[in-house]
């Protein structure tokens, strides 16, 4: 045999094992990267945009103990939980902290009859329909989706709001059910306060049978 036939140096013996190793590790890495790195858990949770006015939920809903529904007043009857108009703020701030620098924008917009350009935090895709009232009136509390807003200086997204996350609850709603009186009580935990049987009774009381049809949310 002609020596010239040996075109490969000795290290090329390692090519095949390396190729096999790379071709198993790389796809695995890519899949894991895509599954975790691009999941809403990684990309959306913790979204905390800067708001035009440093409004503190921790102060209003936490320290002062205001009910969520004082400002988000449509939540029990409509699909949307309304962002309060400037007038709602002025109910109190007409008198309280009138001259605060931080509230300058509030007064300016109020005088001009404009809205405060709040930045939306919880934004579902346009092809998803979520109905607040449908959930609130059956005992799914605010905290289930929004987290402890009463402890947030600046509101951030607490849950992934992904489809799997929605379906988790639609497939097994009982851990999230509470008496209607505790709907806005963010500190209330049905898993602590209620027995499994009581939660089951709540489910029966409100005849909760969450649909998993596509058209439930993708109308």
């Amino acid at each position, binding site marked *: 045999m002609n020596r010239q*036939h040996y*075109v*490969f140096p000795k290290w090329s*013996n390692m*090519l*095949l094992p390396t190729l096999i190793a790379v071709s198993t590790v790389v796809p695995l890495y890519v*899949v894991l990267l895509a*599954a975790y790195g691009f*999941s*809403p*858990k990684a990309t959306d949770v913790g979204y905390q945009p800067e708001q035009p006015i440093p409004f503190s939920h921790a102060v209003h809903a936490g320290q002062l103990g205001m009910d969520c529904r004082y400002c988000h007043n449509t939540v029990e009857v409509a699909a949307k939980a309304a962002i309060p108009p400037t007038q709602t703020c002025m109910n109190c701030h007409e008198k309280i902290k009138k001259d605060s620098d931080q509230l300058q924008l509030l007064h300016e917009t109020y005088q001009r009859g404009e809205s405060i350009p709040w930045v939306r935090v919880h934004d579902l895709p346009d092809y998803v329909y979520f109905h607040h009232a449908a959930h609130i009136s059956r005992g799914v509390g605010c905290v289930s989706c929004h987290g402890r807003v009463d402890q947030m200086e600046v509101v951030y997204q607490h849950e*992934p709001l*992904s*489809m*799997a*996350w*929605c*379906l*988790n609850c639609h497939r097994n709603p009982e851990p999230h059910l509470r008496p209607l009186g505790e709907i806005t009580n963010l500190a209330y935990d049905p898993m602590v306060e209620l027995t499994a049987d009581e939660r089951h009774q709540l489910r029966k009381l409100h005849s909760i049978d969450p649909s998993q049809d596509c058209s439930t949310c993708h109308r």
Partner: protein
Amino acid sequence: MSSVTIDNTVEDPKQRAPLVLNHDDFASVTEEICRVNEAPKPPKAWYVSFIIANMLAGLLVLLLAYLFITGVGIWGNQNPVMWGFPIVNFVFWVGIGHAGTLISAILFLFRQRWRTAINRFAEAMTIFAVICAGLFPGIHVGRIWLAYWLFPIPNQMGMWPQFRSPLLWDVFAVSTYFTVSLLFWYVGMVPDLATLRDRATSRFKAIIYGLFSLGWRGSMRHWHRYERAYLLLAALATPLVLSVHSVVSFDFAVSQLPGWHTTIFPPYFVAGAIFSGFAMVNTLAIPSRQIWGLKNFITMRHLENINKIILVTGSMVGFAYMMEFFIAWYSGAHYEAFAFINRAFGQHAWAYWIMVSCNVISPQLFWFKKIRRSIPLMFIVCLAVNVGMWFERFVIVLSLEQDFLPSSWGYFTPTWIDIWMLIGSFGLFMTLFLLFIRFLPVIAISEVKAVMPQADPHHDQKHGEAKA
């Protein structure tokens, strides 16, 4: 090497018909087959066909881009025929692919020695056909960037594909089939790639062929493991020949549409697939052996054997067509009866009769030895079968036109994009096939040598005589 051609189609019980003609030694076999790859320039016919095939494949790429930008509305798919050309083309190409596995797996297990000359390029044909087939359901999803939804991948939607749907089984069946066929093809090619590596005249070629021959040295141990692996793959691939097209047929049979919802579909589809696959093998083999002078390996006997398989499977298909009509009548289900009468005499009757004349009548000509052994005639029949088998799927899919409710009836018209995408898929197929012929060993060199009488260790001995 003499140029005397022997007629090896004669059946003589006293003697095995030779499968390799005009070769007495192994070296000249290697020489002749490798010439296809080693000639400094391929024949003119290669250039001409490659340019045409490439242009058509390029057209397909452009149309795909147009499709992705615009959406599936550019096709003729419209209520009630939501499955138009894409599914027709898919089933057509998957069917073509079946000959490769049948030749490589089933004929191998049954020790049909004549398979060695045609298995390599039939397997290549299978792989390229499955690539063309896989393209169509992939682009049929419309939003191509969501095509990964076909696979059960955990996702943020908390959703799985519908495991009860045959469309998902199809994904598994076709991807398994592709993987196994590719492995089979490649494993079988390793010793021949090593031959090309050892004969390579340039360093570049030596490196490329060297990489793909995986360090094959032709030692006894290599051969032993190679043969084991090949046998195992053959055993693995054998059920696939039957299962893949059965699953494809479930796409139709599991639904409740009259004309689709029949138990005969799986065997009928498998027979049809092998039928169309073998017709395509002949369609490719006849010009190839002519252009590259491979007549000593792909002999008239090989072509005749293929024709016999076409005759058998064609008759099965014809029988299936008859049974469909019989059951439509015998079942007493008048929707079923209507579907079949409509098939034969309805608005697309022309397609039905093209199908019948190409698939049922034309292969029957192979009862005649003269036709079975005449190159031009068999070529025409094989082309007719290719056309007929495409129309078979077309006819089946168009059962959608007129179902239970007359108010939802419609008429399917393909757009020019439908038609050019079908033609473009042939361009893609031929491009791949022509590249294969130019750069890879088109005939299994090592296997072909094994069916020569010289491979028998006792070849030089007279009967009852000990070797010196």
